């Protein structure tokens, strides 16, 4: 499956419905909220806490879909539904994709 970083249609719709200024603030909020969720994934994995892991992945998936960040959403969804992974690699990949996504969102939000 190939996913674009940001689905432009979803993001345009969001701006049209909620207002571009508001969406720019919302992107900033996402930038603040996502790193603690990534940290929660790591800590849940270390503790073997599958439910905490699922919840953090679920939140990341939910927020990513809101912005049309389809690739990040798909990766988070795999973690949400896939149970505790064997190692931290999927989390590293997710964190890297988050950085790419956030940069793309910021560029779209404040052109």
């Amino acid at each position, binding site marked *: 499956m190939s996913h674009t970083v940001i689905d432009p249609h979803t993001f345009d719709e969001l701006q049209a419905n*909620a207002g571009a200024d508001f969406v720019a603030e919302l992107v900033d*909020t996402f930038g603040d*909220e996502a790193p603690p969720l990534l940290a929660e994934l790591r800590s849940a994995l270390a503790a073997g806490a599958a439910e905490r892991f699922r919840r953090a992945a679920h939140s990341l998936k939910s*927020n990513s879909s*809101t912005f049309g960040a389809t690739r990040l959403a798909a990766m988070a969804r795999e973690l949400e539904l896939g149970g505790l992974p064997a190692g931290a690699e999927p989390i590293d990949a997710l964190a890297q994709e988050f950085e790419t996504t956030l940069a793309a969102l910021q560029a779209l939000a404040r052109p």
Partner: protein
Amino acid sequence: MSAHSALLEAGHFGRFEIVLSERRLQVDGQPVPLGSRAFDLLAALVTRRDRVVPKDELIDVVWPGLVVEDNNLQVQISALRKVLGAQAIATVPGRGYQFTIAAVAPGSSVVNANATEAKGPRVHERTGAGALRKSRLLVADDNKVNRLLLCRSLELMGHEVASVDNGRAALQMLRAEHVDMLLLDLEMPEMDGFGLLEQRAADPALLDVPVIVTSSLEGAAQVARCIELGADDYLHKPVNPVLLKARVESSLERKHLRDRQRELLARLAPELREGAATSSGATSARRGEATLLLARLRDVDALASAQPAQETIELLSSWTTLMLDAIESHGGQVHQMTGDGVAAVFGLAAEPSRDGDASWAAVQAAQEMIELVAQFNAERSSLGKAPIAPSIGIASGEVVAGHAGTPRRATYVCVGAAVQRASRLEALAADRAAGAVLIDGATHAALAGRVATDTVPALALPGSAKEVPVHALKARA
């Protein structure tokens, strides 16, 4: 609301003293009788006197959950101006009304005990004719991005929105404050959405608040569980704004309709409120001395043929609202409404009334009806419309009242010779001068001279050998 009376215990405004907790208004130390709606309106204006209060807001406060015409508000404003002087309430064209008399500060201790209430909610200036009732919505979601976005979407729809980040806080807010609808996330700390729905299912007071679940949990089982637990609707996240608007508005409409039906039901048969089931009339049946009042709008046929149908229906609902206000503010109970006519019984309340109380209350209600209609006519005249006139008959005697019908459809009924007599007197009043109030001998005797009357030729009733003495109320100065 109880909090409402607590926040403004007493206020002195020049010649006026307003005691909210006792629902009392005094002018120059003398108590002034004020209808209950008029009093609610005065209280609303006084507590918000630092600003212009929009009509919609006043209607929301005074007729909560009811859809009423602006006319009704204008009539009540006129009634207040009559008591307080025209300058006491300023009309700000296109914006609303403002109470203008300054409080007399020293001594009048707690006039403004609650600063937030005095400031009041910020009210959106509403444009155009689409006066959709503004609702207060609560969003419960622990995810900040979701929460902000949902709040924003609902605010853009014109609603007032509060938010919390867990189920327990949501539950507390539902119990403590007025909320028209809850938008609920499922996965939350403290108490999750399912936990909240379970608590709500066990609390009849909370079941009135519709809940729309918003979640990105996958699988039909979750949706099914929410619906089983009493959620009204389910929206998958990310929430589609078009769907959101449609579902929210439909649920709110149903809620406002239910609120309105409940209020109407309570007005028509207060005993239903206490859950006096309709299964058996025996539980609510009562026999006793009571006073019956029948008020009818004169010449309704002529009015109806001279104006568009919509205008007639609006007039009839304004008329009925005014009559109900007068009846309720004097403790009467409506037992029949026919559009142009309203029948009410006084003196059958739970606690036995003193002799003459029922007659006195009914006559007071009649006088208030005449005054409210006079105010209403003043408004109509300024719009170039013809005045309306009521005719009123009042009679006292023994009646039997209670709920009758089937469990599915019951109505409050009241039977007795006095019911017939009130109806005959009303018909007789309709032939007299506008605004005539005719009372029977029994009512007249119970009033013991407290009200000025003229004697009118006695009334012969079919099936009765004796004629009924009739008196006409003199207009109150």
